[in-house]
């Protein structure tokens, strides 16, 4: 099986030659190609070269298009800072208050270079690997986007204390977001992974998810032209997982390493794909033997689960992670051999 066949079989719940593995190695490609991160996160060809190196080195079953959420904020005018071993971050958000949204014109996804970068990187990756490896684009859910434009604190304050203002903000974001994400699909993204900050139990209440985040997500997902995977954003999500089921386009969920996989499966039902695994920060701290042992335990727990993928939770696998730790995930998956359904 190649990786596309393996992921498709996982979606369909069919037998596999081995368990699919999907560590998030967007950033790691820059390390493998010794590429300065400002180049990596602005030049689609440099990024695509990094992902070719990731594939050659680790043979993951999913390749990730750039995880550079701050670049979306930069397309709106936020000030970006490039770092030595991390994706770019925001130095300063472009807006300081909800009132400033009224005069803000969202950037055009078909024209703005910071947004075209994503699309072009996807195209290049699809051209080289698309017949064999799924290409995932990662972008936060729509309710998280204002945080990279006005800062998390101001956005949180708006959602909490000015619901009408928050709705006005989302009225601007939603059409932009739908065009942006459908552009990713048009460029060839196999699926889009959406970290759910404003659905995370660590960040917001169930009431906020129910009354604010989910209705927006449902409205957006209904307009998308491809499959979506919802992601834990680096914190346990089980307590709110039930609020994220039954949404259009959603085919899979990536839970946190602290979430109980049995309970997660129970909440999701038997047919959704479930990604689980170690936290990307923890992998850097462990030995390769520890990574392999922990992955084996997870795979043993999920042995009967035809819809399970061994992934990583949190953002990118840490820059300082020894390569043998990433290889250890694969070794663990291979040690279980075929998965017969």
């Amino acid at each position, binding site marked *: 099986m190649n990786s596309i066949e393996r992921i498709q079989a996982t979606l369909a719940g069919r037998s596999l030659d081995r368990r699919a593995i999907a560590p998030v190695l967007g950033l790691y490609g820059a390390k493998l190609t010794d590429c300065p991160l400002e180049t990596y996160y602005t030049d689609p060809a440099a990024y695509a070269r990094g992902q070719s190196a990731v594939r050659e080195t680790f043979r993951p079953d999913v390749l990730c298009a750039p995880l550079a959420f701050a670049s979306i904020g930069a397309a709106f005018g936020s000030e970006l*800072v490039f*770092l*030595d*071993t*991390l994706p770019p*971050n*925001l*130095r300063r958000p472009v807006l300081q208050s909800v009132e400033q949204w009224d005069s803000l014109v969202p950037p055009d996804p078909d024209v703005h270079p910071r947004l075209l970068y994503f699309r072009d990187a996807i195209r290049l990756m699809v051209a080289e690997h698309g017949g064999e490896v799924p290409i995932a684009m990662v972008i936060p859910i729509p309710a998280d986007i204002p945080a990279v434009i006005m*800062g*998390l*604190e101001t956005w*949180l*304050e708006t*959602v*909490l*204390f000015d619901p009408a203002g928050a709705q006005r903000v989302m009225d601007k974001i939603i059409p932009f977001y739908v065009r942006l994400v459908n552009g990713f699909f048009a460029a060839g993204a196999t699926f889009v992974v959406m970290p759910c900050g404003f659905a995370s*139990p*660590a*960040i*917001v*209440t169930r*009431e*906020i998810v129910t009354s604010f985040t989910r209705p927006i997500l449902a409205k957006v997902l209904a307009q998308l032209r491809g499959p979506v995977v919802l992601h834990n954003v*680096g*914190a*346990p999500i089980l*307590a709110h997982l039930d609020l994220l089921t039954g949404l259009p386009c959603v085919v899979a969920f990536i839970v946190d390493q*602290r979430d109980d996989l049995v309970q997660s499966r129970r909440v999701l039902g038997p047919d959704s794909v479930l990604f689980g695994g170690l*936290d990307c*920060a*923890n992998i*850097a*701290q462990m030995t390769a033997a520890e990574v392999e042992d922990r992955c084996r335990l997870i795979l043993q727990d999920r042995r009967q689960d035809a819809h399970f993928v061994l992934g990583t939770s*949190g*953002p990118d696998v*840490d*820059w*300082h992670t020894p390569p043998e730790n990433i290889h250890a995930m694969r070794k663990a998956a291979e040690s279980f051999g075929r998965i017969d359904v």
Partner: protein
Amino acid sequence: MDIHQALIERIRQGDRMGANALLDAWASEHGYERLLAEVLDPTLILIGEGWRSSETFTLAEVYVAAKVAEDVLSKIAARRKPPSEGQPVKGPVVIGNIEEDFHALGRRMVGIFLRTDGWIVNDLGNDVPAAEFVDKAQEVGARVIGVSAMIMTTARNIKSVREEIDRRGLAGRIQLAVGGAVFRVCPGLAEEVGGDGTAPDALDAVGLFGRLWEQSIRKEAGV
């Protein structure tokens, strides 16, 4: 329902105005001078215990609590009374996000809760070089520097603050508090970066700063 539970209920509902109204009513009967010590501080402790022990509070709820605490401090200041009336002034301390870290929210909440507890806080903001932390601590006479980092790579930059403290011969006198999301998922990271202590969340940081302050005094006295 007692005042603490009533306040928690309003905070859970995101009802900042309701929480303020509740506190104003209590203060009109008992006085603002008792509000911090008898109502706000104990409530924040309850929220903090719930947040870290069973994750029963969200960031949004703790943020509402922080804004209510800020509102109370503003009202006390407007009455031209010192914010820590009834308590001795604590500090000063220095806080900031380490170089290359731009995740301000946790640090700002630490600042709010420290001020609510009567601490004098020098907040240096985001992306602060190691030398700047130690320069400021020496300038104001701080015994505790609190450094925040959200992710692994920036957390490792905190080592440079440890090195700067040690290089200037200030180990023991200046205590290094470290915190941020990554410290919650990576046990042992605080020690690895040279921290003298860590706290799982912004509310618990108040107790941590108190313990480190005492530790600084003991170490300086050679106890």
